[in-house]
Each structure stands twice: as structure tokens, then as C-alpha cells.
């Protein structure tokens, strides 16, 4: 083997990015020109259009914030574009992320001798499809020919597990970054790693500590030097930025030292420009940081509790992210969660480390294997790069001879043998099968890297030179495939959902299900369009899940009219990077449709979000009133849950209005959560009403059927009555309304047999005439009807009533809810 394969992992962070390279034994971190392993995720474009990224760009964060952008990761997957006014350029989030990746790629090139072409990039566990797809896109833009994604907590755990000795039980991965907090519960069993659940707060991080600290600094300035700065005064924005940077520096320093000195030069004060030196000790910082820490721990407790894991059962916690270097944080976690903290791990580089390990597991070397130029037979091998199985399978198949037949058949491999390089294990002689393939298993050195030699023999026993001559397998944790973070499915016309690919399914995945259309798609018609909304989420109601794309079948492309109920075979496919493709096959047309209308997180205007929050509040108030009236404690408690979601949503919305674009997304998610609970509560609450209505209807029908109904009608009615009762007991609303329809039909049929029925109906219709769509026409009809009544002409009155009904507003449709889906 000429050189070892090298594997690359990248942690593309919100604030900072890091990268690691792994050669199967040692992990190295990619360093920039300054020798730093941490690269700020900052991109600057100056007035000449020159793009810089990383620490060189970060310097301008203070002096030229307009043209220096960071935190674009938060906008991944949206259609938002970022403007750089100096150069009048607009960049999408993946384009900016790609600039950071390019810097990393170049730096890695210097370090390992070639520019990496393939790498693993980490993404937060809660990333949805469009966000993952945007990340893959960024990798492509940066010049990688292939990237794979891994969830950040999985990478962290992989890295932590890799260096640890025991690995059974539940783990908590605590990842506090610059502005985001993610907590993940993982489980390892039989050497296999699995993400059980996530939680987190998108607006909690080191930045909040900096904020608190800079506030404290401002107070000191005012007290000790009489310099007054105010956050709400725009002219003080520059000095606040300086305070924040100074605060951050001091904070980082205090992770190791017990005291730090902040020097601020050239501060304008009432006494003119002064230089200020402030001393900050650790205790002060700890006190300021505590609220942030406590809040994060609460999230962890919620997560652990929600998954039924007792606190003591947690095996350990892996700390990730810059702020976790703070001693006070480690101490608080140990105390409150009562778990040992995994020590000796670098919280800044852990994710990149894990990503590099994963690159090995999925055998994605930084440089794709070059095809051998030599004239020897080669085997195409399949084996796991890393495996928890001490005896994994190795498979191989002879590829076509490069010289194609020119070689003497004597050199044709007939059998192979695998042996471990340390001599501790040797496989038997294995004959190739008819396809030139072999399947066998090898024995690994426990918790070490094993190298195996591959030898091939001709029929006469002579050695045949083959490629490759060796292969490497590491004994460690196995993570076979990246799991899907949220269920992907399709919204149906009645606002229910059909699950296609379940959360946790390993990617890539593909699923085909047959659905049915609900209405006619007319051949060649411009107007008719069948929509198949693709959604992501686990809620039973489609409108509570997120719309990630829409597959459309337009009438103009349809060669024969599709009646309702036509079969549509919908296939959803996700590649490893989470890119979604969808297609629909219509057997009746023998055609495939694969136009996905859009695939991005849809943006909602803050105003409509505000309106939605307000209306949810109103609904909540109604439920509360009822709950108080009935002293329903359970209902009250759950109303509190809704309230919490709504409050969060309102807070996010305020932040969004203040210019934080991604908080709209968050507000939206909170609103969806609130609505999910609301819907449940409302259904519970409306049940008695529904039942009341049913009973009234039944009483009405029973009376009329008894008076004017036939024998058959009476029988049907009593059957329906029984069915109603059953539906009531089973709390089955659909069945109830279905039976109710029959009951109404029977009742009205009998009712209309009364000679005066149409006169009564006329009275009713003319009393609601004010709501008619064409009042003039309606008034005329009323007049006409009155005359007919005077004549006693029932048939004419009936005609009038029917025409009046046509003018009255129809029932609203609820199909809009399910993203206008045309299938079920």
C-alpha cells in the first residue's frame, strides 16, 4: 500500500468551524495559517468583491459589520439571501458556508499534501430536509465531489466513545455553542450507537454570557469612570460591540485563569479619551453565566425525563462547544444531573473528530481510491471501515481484467487467503465462486486497528499478484447510516398524513405507496391541478407538520381524464445527504410525474404569524373559560402547556421583528406545537356539544318520522339511533356525523311530506336573507314567494326556497388545511 487512506470530518458550526483528518490511527486537526484549529464561521466581502473567510474576516466583525456576516448556518434551507452592501453582492447561506469550507479545504490541502475531495460534514440533529440539502450543496460549492452528513451529537458520541473504554448504556450529549444549545440522548448497545431523542434551545449560547458580561462592563464604566452607554441608543452600538468582544476574550481567558484584565483603549468619556483597565474575576463571571447554564440544564432534565430515563441511569455526559470549557458549567452539570462528565475531551474539536471517524466508518476517504495502472488483477472489496463486530464480513469480487484476455489464464486467481498483519490470525484458503467472488469473515484485534493482507492463488497454487494487497478495519463503534431526523410523509385531503419514511430510518431510503386521487383531473385542462404535498413531522394532522415540497400533476400534462379514486403511486426518496426527490406514477396514464414545485422551508410573514398567535390565544381563552367553569384541572394544566408554546412563539416573533431572520422559523415551530395541543383540547371540549346536537337532530327526526314516515324509514331510523349511541360510547366523531346525516335525511324526508313544510322553510329562508350573496335578487325572490304563499301554491314556494338557498353562503371547506392536498 503506497499511502494510507486519509479521512476528513468537518464541523460546520454556527459560530466556529473545525476540521479533522484521520489516517486510521491518529487524528489531526486542520490548522489555518495562524496555527489555530478553530476557524470562525465568518465571511466578509469587501468593496472590490474580494471574499475572505475565517479569522481574517472575523476581525472586521467589529469595524464593518455590514459586510461581514456570520451565523448564516441558521438560515440554511431558507430562500433568504444575505446582502453585502459594499460590493452589492447577494449570497445564499450555502454559498457563504461554502466560503468557509473552501478555507478549510485549502488548509487541509497544505497539511495532508492534497486537496480533499470527499468529506463528512456534521449537521445539528434537528436539521430538516431542506437544511440538510443546503449543507450538502455548500459542500459541493466548496469543491467537494462527495460529502456525507452526520448528526452532530452522533459525531460527538462517536469521538467520545472512540477514546473511552466502556460503552454500554445511555449517554447525554450536551452541546452549547455560540448561540444554540442542543441536548441529545443517545444509547449504545452491542457496540451500536443510536440517537434516542433530542431537545434544545435555538437561542441559548455563549453569546448570552457575553451579553450579560458586557452589561456588567457597562455598569462598571458608568460607576467607575462616569461613562454612560446605553444599549437602546444606536450611537452606542459600536462601543457595545467592542465591549462584547472584550467580554468574550475575558470569558475565554477565565476558563483557565482565575482573573482576567480587560483593557479598553480610547473610550470617550466626559474627561475626554481614556484608557480603561478592568479586572474581572471568575466568581463574577460565574454569577453572570449561571442563568444560561441553569436554563440549559433544565432542557436536559426535560429531555431525560421525557424519555423515561432515570437520572442515575445516565451513563455519562459528553460536553461539546466552547462554553463547556468553563469550570462552573462542568460543576453545575455534575451536581444537578448527577452524571460523571467525560473528561479529557476537547469540546471545540470533538464534533470534527467524530465526523472524521465516521468518514472511515462509511469508507469515504478524502481522496477517492485511484484505479491501479498496473497490469494486475484487482478485487473490488466490501468491508466496514470500522466495526463493533469482532468478526466482520469481508467480501470481494474480481473486476474485469485490465488487459482483457491478453493475460495467460494461468495467472487467473482461483482462490484467496486473508491474514492479519500481526500474524495473530490467518484465514483458510477460499475458492472464488462462479462470479469470481468470495465472502468470508475476519477476526479483529480488540479496540485496535487491524491490517489484513490479501493473497490470491492460481489453480496450480502459484501466487497471483492482485490489488489491493491489504485492507484496514478498526474495531470500535458502528454507526451504519445516518438516520432521518423527522418522519417524511404526504399530506392527505382530509388533513391527515401518510407516513412514508419514518424518523430514524437509515438513509438513503426509498418508499413507494399507492394513494388515491380525490377529484377529477381533467385532460388538457389548465385549471385542474393535483397537488401532493410532501411534509415532515410526526403530527397526525398534516397542517401541523412542515411542508417541504409539493409534487404536482397538472391537467395540461394529463392525456386522459383521471377520475377521483384513481391510483397514484408516489415514491419518496432520500439520499444520504437528506436530499429529497419525489415522483408519482399514474398507472392509468402510464406516466411518471416528477416535478416538485418547491423544496425550501416556506417563509411566513411576521404579520400573519402574529395574527395566527392571536387567534390561537383566543381559542385558548375559550378553553380556559370552560376549564374554569368545569373545574377541570387536567384541561387547565394542558392549557398552560399551550400558553408556554405561545409565549415562546411571541418572543421569537419579537426577535424576528428585531431582525433575526431565523426566529420566524422558530416562532412558526412553536406555533405549530401550540396548535397541536389546542386541536386536541378543542376536540375533547367539543364532544359534549356534538353529542347534544346529535340528540336534538335525532329527536326532530324521530318526531317527524313517527308522524309522516313509512315503516321502512322508521326501521332505518331506529337502527341509526342505535348506531349513534354506539358512536357516542366509542367517542367516534366521524361515525357520529355519518349517522347523523342519515338521521337528518330521514327526518327531513318525513318533514317535507307535511303540506305546509315548504311554507315553513320559506319563512326560515327569508329570515336569513340578509346574508344572501345578491340581496336584490333575494329580495325579489322573497316577494315572489310571498305571493305564491297567498295563492297557496306549495310547488311555487318550493321553487323560490330552492333558489334562495343557492344564494345563501355555503359551508366553509376545510381542505385548505391539508396544504390543498389532492390525494388520500
Amino acid at each position, binding site marked *: 500500500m503506497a499511502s494510507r487512506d486519509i479521512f476528513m470530518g468537518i464541523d460546520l458550526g454556527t459560530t466556529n468551524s473545525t476540521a479533522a483528518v484521520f489516517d486510521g490511527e491518529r487524528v489531526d486537526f486542520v490548522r489555518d495559517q495562524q496555527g489555530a484549529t478553530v476557524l470562525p464561521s465568518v465571511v466578509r466581502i469587501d468593496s472590490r468583491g474580494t471574499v475572505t473567510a475565517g479569522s481574517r474576516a472575523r476581525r472586521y466583525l467589529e469595524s464593518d459589520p455590514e459586510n461581514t456576516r456570520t451565523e448564516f448556518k441558521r438560515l440554511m434551507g431558507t430562500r433568504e439571501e444575505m446582502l453585502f452592501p459594499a460590493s452589492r453582492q447577494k449570497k445564499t447561506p450555502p454559498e457563504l458556508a461554502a466560503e468557509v469550507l473552501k478555507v478549510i479545504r485549502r488548509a487541509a490541502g497544505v497539511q495532508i499534501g492534497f486537496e480533499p475531495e470527499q468529506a463528512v460534514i456534521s449537521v445539528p440533529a434537528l436539521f430538516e430536509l431542506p437544511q440538510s440539502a443546503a449543507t450538502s450543496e455548500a459542500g459541493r460549492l466548496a469543491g467537494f465531489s462527495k460529502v456525507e452528513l452526520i448528526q452532530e451529537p452522533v459525531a460527538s458520541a462517536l469521538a467520545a466513545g472512540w477514546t473511552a473504554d466502556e460503552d454500554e448504556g445511555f449517554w447525554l450529549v450536551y452541546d452549547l455553542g455560540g448561540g444554540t444549545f442542543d441536548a441529545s440522548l443517545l444509547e449504545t448497545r452491542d457496540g451500536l450507537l443510536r440517537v434516542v431523542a433530542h431537545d434544545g434551545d435555538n437561542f441559548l449560547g455563549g453569546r448570552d454570557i457575553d451579553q450579560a458580561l458586557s452589561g456588567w462592563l457597562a455598569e462598571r464604566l458608568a460607576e467607575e469612570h462616569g461613562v454612560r452607554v446605553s444599549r437602546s441608543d444606536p450611537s452606542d452600538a459600536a462601543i457595545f460591540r467592542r465591549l462584547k468582544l472584550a467580554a468574550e476574550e475575558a470569558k475565554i481567558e477565565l476558563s483557565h485563569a482565575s482573573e482576567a484584565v480587560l483593557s479598553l483603549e480610547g473610550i470617550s468619556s466626559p474627561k475626554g479619551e481614556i484608557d480603561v483597565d478592568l479586572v474581572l474575576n471568575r466568581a463574577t463571571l460565574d454569577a453572570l453565566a449561571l442563568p444560561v447554564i441553569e436554563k440549559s440544564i433544565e432542557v436536559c432534565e426535560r429531555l431525560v425525563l421525557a424519555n423515561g430515563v432515570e437520572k442515575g441511569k445516565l451513563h455519562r455526559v459528553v460536553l461539546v462547544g466552547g462554553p463547556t470549557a468553563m469550570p462552573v458549567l462542568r460543576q453545575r452539570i455534575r451536581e444537578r444531573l448527577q452524571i460523571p462528565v467525560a473528561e479529557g475531551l476537547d469540546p471545540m474539536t470533538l464534533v470534527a473528530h467524530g465526523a472524521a471517524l465516521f468518514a472511515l466508518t462509511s469508507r469515504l476517504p478524502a481522496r477517492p481510491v485511484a484505479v491501479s495502472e498496473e497490469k494486475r488483477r484487482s478485487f473490488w472489496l466490501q468491508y466496514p471501515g470500522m466495526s463493533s463486530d469482532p468478526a466482520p464480513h469481508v467480501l470481494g469480487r474480481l473486476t474485469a481484467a485490465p488487459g482483457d484476455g491478453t493475460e495467460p489464464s494461468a495467472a487467473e486467481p482461483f482462490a484467496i487467503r486473508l491474514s492479519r498483519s500481526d500474524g495473530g490470525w490467518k484465514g483458510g484458503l477460499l475458492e472464488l465462486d462462479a462470479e469470481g467472488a468470495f465472502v468470508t469473515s475476519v477476526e479483529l484485534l480488540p479496540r485496535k486497528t487491524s491490517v489484513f493482507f490479501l493473497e490470491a492463488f492460481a489453480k496450480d497454487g502459484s501466487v497471483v499478484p492482485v490489488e489491493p494487497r491489504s485492507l484496514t478495519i478498526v474495531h470500535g463503534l458502528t454507526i451504519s447510516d445516518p438516520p432521518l431526523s423527522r418522519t417524511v410523509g404526504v399530506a392527505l385531503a382530509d388533513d391527515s398524513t401518510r407516513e412514508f419514511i419514518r424518523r430514524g430510518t437509515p438513509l438513503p431510503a426509498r418508499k413507494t405507496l399507492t394513494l388515491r386521487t*380525490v*377529484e377529477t383531473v*381533467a385532460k388538457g385542462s389548465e385549471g385542474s391541478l393535483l397537488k401532493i404535498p410532501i411534509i415532515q413531522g410526526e403530527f397526525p394532522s398534516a397542517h401541523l407538520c412542515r411542508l417541504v415540497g409539493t409534487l404536482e400533476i397538472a391537467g395540461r400534462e394529463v392525456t386522459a381524464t383521471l377520475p377521483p379514486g384513481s391510483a397514484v403511486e408516489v415514491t419518496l426518496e432520500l439520499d444520504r445527504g437528506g436530499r429529497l426527490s419525489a415522483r408519482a406514477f399514474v398507472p392509468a396514464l402510464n406516466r411518471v410525474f416528477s416535478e416538485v414545485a418547491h423544496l425550501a422551508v416556506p417563509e411566513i410573514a411576521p404579520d400573519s404569524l402574529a395574527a395566527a398567535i392571536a387567534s390561537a390565544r383566543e381559542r385558548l381563552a375559550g378553553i380556559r373559560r370552560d376549564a374554569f367553569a368545569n373545574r377541570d384541572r387536567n384541561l387547565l394544566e394542558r392549557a398552560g402547556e399551550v400558553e408556554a408554546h405561545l409565549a415562546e412563539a411571541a418572543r421569537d416573533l419579537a426577535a424576528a421583528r428585531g431582525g433575526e431572520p431565523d426566529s420566524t422559523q422558530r416562532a412558526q415551530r412553536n406555533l405549530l406545537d401550540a396548535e397541536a395541543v389546542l386541536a386536541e383540547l378543542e376536540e375533547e371540549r367539543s364532544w359534549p356539544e356534538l353529542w347534544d346536537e346529535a340528540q336534538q337532530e335525532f329527536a326532530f327526526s324521530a318526531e317527524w318520522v313517527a308522524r309522516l314516515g313509512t315503516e*321502512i324509514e322508521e326501521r332505518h331510523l331506529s*337502527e341509526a339511533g342505535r348506531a349513534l349511541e354506539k358512536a357516542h360510547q366509542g367517542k367516534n366523531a366521524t361515525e357520529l356525523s355519518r349517522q347523523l346525516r*342519515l338521521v337528518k*335525511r330521514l327526518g327531513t324526508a318525513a318533514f317535507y311530506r307535511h303540506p305546509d313544510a315548504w311554507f315553513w322553510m320559506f319563512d326560515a329562508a327569508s329570515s336569513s336573507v340578509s346574508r344572501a350573496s345578491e340581496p336584490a335578487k333575494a329580495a325579489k325572490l322573497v316577494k315572489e314567494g310571498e305571493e305564491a304563499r297567498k295563492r297557496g301554491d306549495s310547488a311555487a314556494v318550493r321553487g323560490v326556497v330552492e333558489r334562495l338557498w343557492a344564494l345563501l353562503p355555503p359551508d366553509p371547506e376545510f381542505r385548505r388545511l391539508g396544504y390543498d392536498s389532492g390525494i388520500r
Partner: protein
Amino acid sequence: MALPLAPLIWLAIWLYMRNRKGGAGGVDLSPGFWLFVWIICIWNSVFVAGLLFGGAAVSENPAWALPALAAAVFCFPWTFARWVLIPAGWTRAAYYVLRIPGTTLWKDRRGGALAGAVWAHTRSGRRSPRVDEWLQKKLAALSPLKAGGVAALALSRAAEGEIDFARGLMRLVLAFDRNARPRRILRVAVEWLAAEAATRGDWEAVRAIGSRRGVRTRWTLFASLAARRLLGESRPHALLLRAAWLLAPNRIGSLGLLRLALAGRQDAPVQREEGGLPATFSDLLRLHAALWKEGPASAGDLDRVQLGWSRLFMKGVAGGLRERAAAIAAANAEHVWEEARARIVGDLASMLREHGHSLAALTPSGLTEDIRARLEDEGMEELEHAAGALARRRANQQVLPVHDELVEWCALRDLYESLAGVASNGLRPLAFASVYPAASGHAVWLFNERGERPLGNALLRVLLEEARNAGDVEAERLQAANVAIPI
């Protein structure tokens, strides 16, 4: 010598009449008048043709036969088209010959002629896009649509392989008012339906069609006798069957059915000993899986499996499953068991429906109630969707070409019938109540606003019949009145 010219004279009269009719902007002459003219005309022509044939025979001059043939075609266009042009696949010829005015198709001559033409085209063996287009244009131009047009559409769709839709259309042909439904077309429809049912092996339906009064043909009579023999109830004598076969047309083609019927029922129902049912989950599953094999499963088989399952589920969660759950640290044995039960119920329900068996075919057991609930729930939901779509479309005034309206109607009717047919009796009124307002509104819409009076009337007739079946007195009264409005 003037005699051979007689048909030509009649032709001239006909052309004149036709022109007059066209010139008057489509003013219809009273059918009685036409009848009168044609009775005279035909019998004259028959007489002439006879004379001509006689002349040809006597003089041994074949030239005489030519005008004789023309006269014969002229007198019996349907017979000529049906037995000569259609088998030969001469599409346009069939169309124009059938357009010759006569008594045979006069209730829907354009549609009827088109049906003949479509039929001829499918027999031509080679599908010509030009002819196809010509036919489609003519089909689309039919308005108002009458029975002949519907039959033409059915034949064309059947040729495309859309048998279900074609069946729906042919059934609709039967529902047309007699004034919009030529007899010949009715006969084609009835024979087609019988053949289609025979293909599926639905002998019950074949028998029902053959014993329908007024629409029996010699062929459906033969087919229904064969069906009765195959059903094995009252076995008509072999001799009778042979005689019916001899009398019916298409003897050679129908030989297969004769042989099948004479052989009788191939396998008598297997007597199964009670208690011979497997008792373990996996054995039952294997038995159940046998039902999924190609071809329809019989009601008896379904019942047997159903009984086996109900016995198994009555005993509660299998002990083996509990042990297994403990062994692999799964805490959900109960849930798994219930879920499996629900799946099995669902599968039995869908098989029952797919193969068109009634729930009554199952012996009441611990599962039948659940199967019923499942069937009703799913079926009703589908039906509500379909009816809702129809109503919505009408409310939005979304007009489809009449043919497409039919697609939707037939799909709805199939859905309704499959549900009403399979589930308990109590469901029929419920199902009817949920489709009736939309369906009736739709038919009335076609009748009043779309100018498709014959079609609207046919749809209303279907509704009338179903109202009777479902015991909806009010709907019945209303539709009886609607149907009575002349088309």
C-alpha cells in the same frame, strides 16, 4: 327493366328528405312518419331485391346481383354491417352504412353508427391513428349523448383495456330511456355485459343478464343456461344447452363455453372437518397467505381463515409471544398482538371487498363485527370523498366534457355498489344517504343545464332504482317524478 332502378329512386327520395331535414335546421320529423315511409320503402326494396336475385339466378348474369346487393344493404344496414363490415374491420364503411336511415337505429342513429364504427375499427387488427382520430372527433361531437354514443364510448374504452369503466358504461346503456336507446345497441350492451361477466367467472351475473326479460338475446340465453349449469343449482339438461347453443349466433366462438358448461362444475366443494383449523399464529398466517395467491378467493376460504383467527384471538395474547418479548427486552407484547389482530381484520375486510363477497358469507365470530366496522368505515369514507368531490365540482361549475363526467359517475357507482354489496344491510341506506344528494344534483345538472337530457334521465333512473333498494321513500318519489319528465 325499370325495376332495378327502384332502389335508386328510393335513394333519391331519401337524399331529398335528408336535405330537407338538414335545411330546416334540424327540425325532427315525427318518428311515425319515418316509420310509415320506411315500412313501405323496405318492403318495396325487399321485393325488388328478391326480384333482382331471382333475375340473376334465371339469367345467369352476375351483373344482376350487384344492384341486388345494394338493395339488400339498403334494407338491412345493421345486419350487413354487423356480419360483414365489422368483422372485416371497415370502419368508415360501417359508419356510413349504419347512417342509412332505417328503423333499426333510428332512436340514436349517429351514436349507434359510431358504435358500429368503433367496433369495426377494433376488429381491423391494426390501429390506425388517423381513423382513431376521426372516431374520437365524432365521439366528442355527439351531443346530446344517447345510448348509442355511450355504447360507442364503452367499446372504445374496452378496446383500450379499461374494462371496469366500459362495464359501467354498458350498464348505463341499459338505463337509458327507450326513446334514446336503439334496440340493436341494447342487445350489444347486454351481450357485452354477459361476456364480460363470463370472463370474470361471475356466473351469477351471467345468469341474471340472461333471465332479464325484454333484453334477452339468443346468445345471452345460451350463456345464462351455461351459467346455471356451472353454478350447479338447477341444472338445465345438456340437450337443452346444446339446442340453445345451436340457436345462438357465434357458434364456433361459443364452443368453449358449451364445453365448459357440459363438463360442469370442476371441483365440488371440499368437505372440511370441523376443528381441522391450525391453532398457532404462524400456521394460520400461512393459511391466510394462501388467500393472496392469484385469482379470487372464495367466500368459503375466507370464512375458514376468519374462523381460525377468531378462535386464536379469543384466547388473548399468546404465551409464546410474551416469553419472546421478555427475551428480547420488548415491553409491548400486548400492543403487538392487538396490532396484528387489527391488521388481520383489515386484510380480511379488504379481501372481502376486493373479491365481492358479502359479509353475510362469514360465520359470525369474534372477528366479524370488527370486519364489518372496518368495511363500513373505510367504504363510507371513500364514498364520502367521492361524493364530496362531485358536489364540489358542480358547485364550482367546473364543467368537464360529458365523457369525463361519465368516468366520474361510473367510478362513484362502482364504489357505492361494492360497498352496498359487501356490507350488512343496514349500510345501504347510510351509503345511499351519503351519495344521493351529490349524485342526484349532478344528474339534474346534466339534465337541466348541460343539455344532456337523455343522459341525465338515464342517471336519474339508476338513482330511482337504487332509492328503491335502499328504502329511501322520499328519493324514490322524487326520482319517479323526475324520470317521468320527457327527454
